[in-house]
């Protein structure tokens, strides 16, 4: 309960800080819409070759417009900051506080998104106007509920994955290359450029189990409606396993990491 109160405080603090830089965040949001739109155009060009893609034109449009929103809801940017806090000793001041350091990043993550989303949604709406009549959102409320239930879990997996990666800085001097590689490979395996449903059938077993599907693609797949109930259930099971596994990783890494932490002031 106390942790919740602290997070609420931190979120408010971050909302204020983010509002201060609203112009900069607006530019991020523009890019968050433009880049998926460009990828969408390319796939539409492919679909116009008269070939049968596993996705119809409408599904492609819906996929990439939803991707704009989901990618922001589930975005993370903290690995670099966690690593920096550990390396430069900014973490030390947090060790004195009666709250775990992770709350700092949770507050920052939610706080920024609270400001980003109201900026993003009108832009996605505008993009939707460009494709009037081709956006097919489900009318089935059950699917919306599943989607909405899935979103925070997916965001949490993306967050924990980044946090664990940044925490490697307890043992590794420079993790920036690793972080960069993860963001490239992660975006690809999360279906940012090629929807996972368009990958060859032979790798679908691997795609269903690898973590990056559960940092972006899975909720979109639920909403664009191409998952059988069995595969949806299986997805939720894998998602839960990742949450538990990553949380355990985080706890273990920080227990042992803090012992070997030797930056300024520790």
């Amino acid at each position, binding site marked *: 309960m106390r942790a919740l109160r602290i997070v609420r405080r931190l979120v408010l603090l971050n909302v204020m800080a983010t509002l201060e830089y609203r112009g900069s965040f607006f530019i991020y949001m523009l890019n968050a819409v433009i880049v998926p739109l460009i990828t969408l155009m390319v796939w539409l*060009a*492919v679909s116009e*070759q008269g070939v*049968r893609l596993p996705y119809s034109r409408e599904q492609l449009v819906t996929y990439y417009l939803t991707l704009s929103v989901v990618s922001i809801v589930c975005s993370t940017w903290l690995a670099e900051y966690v690593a920096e806090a550990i390396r430069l000793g900014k973490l030390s001041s947090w060790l004195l506080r009666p709250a775990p350091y992770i709350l700092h990043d949770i507050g920052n993550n939610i706080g920024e998104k609270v400001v980003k989303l109201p900026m993003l949604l009108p832009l996605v709406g505008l993009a939707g106007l460009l494709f009037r009549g081709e956006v097919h959102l489900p009318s089935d409320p059950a699917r919306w509920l599943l989607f909405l239930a899935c979103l925070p879990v997916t965001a949490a997996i993306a967050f924990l994955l980044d946090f664990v990666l940044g925490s490697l800085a307890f043992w590794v001097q420079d993790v920036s290359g690793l972080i960069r590689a993860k963001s490239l490979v992660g975006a690809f395996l999360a279906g940012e450029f090629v929807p996972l449903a368009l990958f*060859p059938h032979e790798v679908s077993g691997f795609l269903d189990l690898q973590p990056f599907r559960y940092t972006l693609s899975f909720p979109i797949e639920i909403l664009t409606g191409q998952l059988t109930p069995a595969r949806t259930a299986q997805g939720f099971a894998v998602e839960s396993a990742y949450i538990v596994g990553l949380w355990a990783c985080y706890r273990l890494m920080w227990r042992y990491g803090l012992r070997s932490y030797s930056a300024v002031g520790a």
Partner: protein
Amino acid sequence: MRYLRVWRRYLLISLALVMEYRVNFLVSVLTGLVELGLAVLTFVLMFRFTNDVAGWSRAEVLMLAGVYRVVDALITLQVSPNMHAIPEYVQEGQMDFVLLWPVSSRFTVSVRLMNLPALGNLVSAVALIVYAGNQAGVRWSPGGVAEAAAFMLCGVVLLYCLWFLIVTCSFWLVTLDTISDLFYGVFEAARYPVSFFRGVLRVVLTFAVPVAFATTFPTQSLLGAADTRLLAVGVVLAAAGLVLTQLFWSYAVRHYSSASS
């Protein structure tokens, strides 16, 4: 001549930096390879469904992916470090010093910083162009390569002008320190041939936001399918871009309220 000497000095400083942080070079080359691999994989996945997209075969698109990596390396090498720094100069008042130096302020802010590790990515990019080019049945000729290089140079200059135009606005939008990021949304389009886009968008991407000169036209030159008249258009556009941005920059600098005044 004096400008060339100044640039050489900047180059030596950057070289000293690379020597200091050698691991950065390795990391840059490795992540460059990952980026290249993912671009190739994307196109391989795309061409599972069809043998040609808007008149481009898989091998031709892979050549373009290589050309994009070359352009990306050139931009990362000389352009992007400087474009990111300009809003900072304005915000933190370092423009004061820039204006005091006895060289053109636009020259200084545009070339001072170099990210030399980006050079490492040229090797893999050229390797991809050669490999995919052979698959596409390119008959390599010095003329074609020179034409491609000329197109690419026009493209890079035009992209620089566009980016420079955007960041020059930071004299008015002082708090907007991410204004340079606007460029990346545009640059994303350079990954694909312009013919993948239709209608107005294609015209925009050819002339207004000239990514076509950077990647599409050079690839077509290598394939022997470029419209040579466009090269003249590119040169004129690039020259006009340089002049216009110079005018805008001089106008903007007059609006600079320095840190100390």
